[in-house]
Structure formats: structure tokens, C-alpha cells
């Protein structure tokens, strides 16, 4: 039953070509930019590598996670609410939690397929060890775990997919640039971004970004030990799932 729900979500997501392209294009646009830089700026290889590792690759991954787990799932759920899909589903005897898990598996599968593809693409441009590769996939999945229930909360707040779509842009900008911009400007100002991370600890993307810096050899250590990131993200996920259960009505 869970497999059927996952399959349905993936099939619908992939058949909706506009949405699929919209999901993968931002992430792969940064890869294409990286490739152009790498091919054209051959005399400044160190700078290019720094740029790719410090900005382009992290932004690609952040965008991919946002697109699939956040925007796409939120719009899908908001539409399900608007067209009263759950009025039908609840009569099949399927528990809301089963649907939550089934759709979650679909989201995780899609994200992981494209995440692996993205990292494989980047591995042609920068040195990326197999261990770093796996660790990046691992932390990305934990961030996804924290973000997934958030899509139910937002879908509960917004009336339908179109409203959700328009509201997700500022939310995405807030989540993304609150991490990437301070990191970039503080580095330029010769300050350690990690000194300011406490103010950004509400944002699950922080933990991904900080871990990426370590696994791409851009930092010597993470702000907090990585195991704490996994705990924090799991706690985020549980708390948000509890809120999602209250906010996202099946009726």
C-alpha cells in the first residue's frame, strides 16, 4: 500500500514535465555555470575550485532539496487539499500516517536519484572522494527529513497549489539566502561565519551548508559535532511532524 502511494507520487511528479524541469533546472543551472567556469578559467583553477565548492555546489544541493522536498511536495499537497483527494482516500481505510510515509518515500527517492546524479556531475569538475560523496548524501537526507513535514504545514496554511507556489518563492529565498549570503559576506570580511551560526540555528539548511563545507574541504571542522546535527534535524522533523498533523487537515 505504501509502495503504491510512493509510486503514485513519483509517477505524477515525473509526468508533470513542467514541474520536473522546474525542480531540476535551478540545481543543474549552477552545475552548467561551474562547468563553463572550469573550462574557461583554466589559469585560475584554484579560484574556480573554491567558487564551485564554496558556492555553486552547496547552492545546487540546497536548490534541489528545496525544489523536490519543499516546493513540489507543498504544491502537490495543497492541490490534494483543494481538490478534496483525501475525502476519497480516507474512505479506503488508509491512515493519514500511511499516506505521509508513502509520499515521503516518493519524495526521498526522487531527491536521492537527482542528488546522486548532481554529485556525479560535479565529481567531474572537482575532487570528490567516495566517502565525502556518501556523507553529503547522508546529511542531505537528514535535512530532507526535517523539511518534509514543513511541506504539510505550508500546504495546510495555503488554500491551493497556486497560492502555495507564489508564497514559496519568498520562503525559499529566506531559507536559502539566510545561510549562503552571511557565509559569503563574512568570509569576504575575513570573519568566521561559524561565530554567527547560533542566529541561524532555526534553519535546517544551516546544518547542510556547514557539513558541506567540511566534506568539500572548505573548513576544518563543523560548527557543532556532526552527530549533533543529525539529532537536531531529527528533533526538527518530529516537532514539525506533530505540528503538521494539527495544521494539515485531511478534510
Amino acid at each position: 500500500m505504501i509502495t503504491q502511494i510512493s509510486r503514485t507520487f513519483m509517477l505524477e511528479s515525473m509526468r508533470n514535465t513542467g514541474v520536473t524541469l522546474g525542480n531540476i533546472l535551478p540545481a543543474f543551472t549552477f552545475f552548467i555555470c561551474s562547468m563553463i567556469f572550469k573550462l574557461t578559467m583554466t589559469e585560475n583553477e584554484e579560484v574556480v575550485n573554491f567558487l564551485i565548492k564554496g558556492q555553486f555546489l552547496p547552492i545546487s544541493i540546497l536548490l534541489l532539496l528545496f525544489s523536490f522536498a519543499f516546493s513540489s511536495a507543498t504544491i502537490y499537497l495543497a492541490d490534494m487539499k483543494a481538490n478534496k483527494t483525501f475525502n476519497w482516500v480516507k474512505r479506503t481505510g488508509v491512515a493519514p500516517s500511511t499516506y505521509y510515509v508513502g509520499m515521503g518515500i516518493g519524495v526521498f527517492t526522487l531527491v536521492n536519484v537527482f542528488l546522486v546524479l548532481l554529485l556525479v556531475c560535479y565529481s567531474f569538475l572537482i575532487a570528490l572522494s567516495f566517502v565525502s560523496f556518501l556523507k553529503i548524501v547522508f546529511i542531505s537526507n537528514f535535512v530532507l527529513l526535517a523539511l518534509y513535514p514543513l511541506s504539510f504545514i505550508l500546504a495546510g496554511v495555503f488554500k491551493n497549489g497556486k497560492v502555495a507556489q507564489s508564497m514559496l518563492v519568498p520562503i525559499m529565498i529566506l531559507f536559502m539566502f539566510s545561510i549562503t549570503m552571511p557565509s559569503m559576506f563574512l568570509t569576504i570580511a575575513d570573519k568566521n561565519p561559524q561565530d554567527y551560526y547560533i542566529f541561524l540555528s532555526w534553519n535546517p539548511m544551516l546544518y547542510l551548508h556547514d557539513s558541506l563545507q567540511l566534506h568539500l574541504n572548505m573548513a576544518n571542522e563543523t560548527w557543532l559535532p556532526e552527530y549533533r546535527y543529525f539529532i537536531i534535524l531529527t528533533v526538527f522533523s518530529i516537532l514539525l511532524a506533530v505540528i503538521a498533523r494539527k495544521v494539515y487537515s485531511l478534510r
Partner: protein
Amino acid sequence: MELILKDIVKKYDGKAILNNISATFKQGYCYLLLGENGAGKSTLAKCIVGDEDYDNGTIQFNNSSQSVVDNAVIQYQSFDSYQHLKIREVIRLFEKLSNQNVDLEELYEILELQTFDHVLLKNASGGQRKAVSIFLAFLLNKRIVILDEPFADLDLMKKKQLMHFLQNEMNKQGKILIIISHEVAGFETLFDYVYILKDGKFIENGSKQELVTKYKNTVLAGIEGIYFEVTGKVLGGRAG
């Protein structure tokens, strides 16, 4: 087994849409719900299946409120979910989710689903979406089935076939059928009881035979005549 509605009150913004509605629906019978647009038919149907909360009263099936929701299904006028699935994929999804093994080949043919089950829901017409909705309502295999204008969008032969299917479901499966329809001519044998709703109240109800006896010399024949006598209007909304 009976579905019992007692003093149901439903208000929107302080205005009563359903005003102390009471009725009893027995297993193995078909009930026709008549009324003008806005009379409260759809609201009543949604209250029965649990899509809408009601402000007062009780709805019970087998002496339990919870079992009404578990045992009832409504065929909505359209099916707008799963836009990027093909119709046969939607049906397969619901077969798996509900874990029901119901033989609905006859209904599949009556609704001519085989001719358009390869169509994506987003490309399906209103009539095709409605056919999906009717099919799913029976696929879920509930004891109480509420159908909203099931005969519209079907040709005459298919209408007759659907009527026979419904009669069979009611008699052999022991279902309670509640049908909201403005189209009754030609299907009168299907209906056992008639409820006429106006301004959130039942203004007339009874078995078809009782009402035929009560309203003998009607201008129009059968149920249409009864409706005209009671409301002064012709079924479908025209003023009499």
C-alpha cells in the same frame, strides 16, 4: 440495519441550511432526494458521509455515529484528483488502497470506462470524470452509497443499464442507496422512498406508493407530478 438521522441542524454564518432534519434509511432500499438548488441536498449528503460537521442532532448507523463515516461513500459530481494519472491507474490505486476485490466489470462497461481509461485525468471531460467518480463510489464497497445526479451525461440505454445495476446492488448487496437527481422519468421503479427538501426541511416524504396514493390527480405523471403538487415547480427548477 438502518441509517437514522435525528434533528440535524447545519448552519453557515448563522443561517440554517439544514433545519431539524430527521429521517430513517433502511438497508436494501433506494431513496430519492429531491429539492431545488440550494435546498440543502448536497449539504445533507456531506453531513451523512462525514465531509461536513453538523451543529446539532445525531446520525447513526447500527447505533453508532462512527460507523456512518466508515460505511458511507458519496459520489461527488466530479473527480479532480490525481491529474497526472491515467484513469485506469487511478482505479488501480483505489483498488490497492481499499484492498477490495469487488467485481465491477458490468459497471465498467456501463460507464464505458474501457473507451477512455487510458486518458490522463487532466485531459478527461466532465462526463468522464463523473464516470470515474461513480465507479470509485462502488469500488469502495460501502453499505451506504450516495449518488449525486448519476444519470446525467449518459445516453438513454446506459441510463437504463445503470438503473438495473443499481437495483441489483441494492437488492443483492443490501446497500442503502440515496440518490440526488433531477432526472426521474424512466427510473421510477428504482426508487422506494421519496424525500422532498425545501429550505433545509423535509416538506414531504414517504414511500413512493404512499405518495402516489396521496397525490392522485397530478398534472404530471409519477414522481414529477408529486414534486409539482408539493412544490408548485417542475423538477429541474422551472416555475410551475
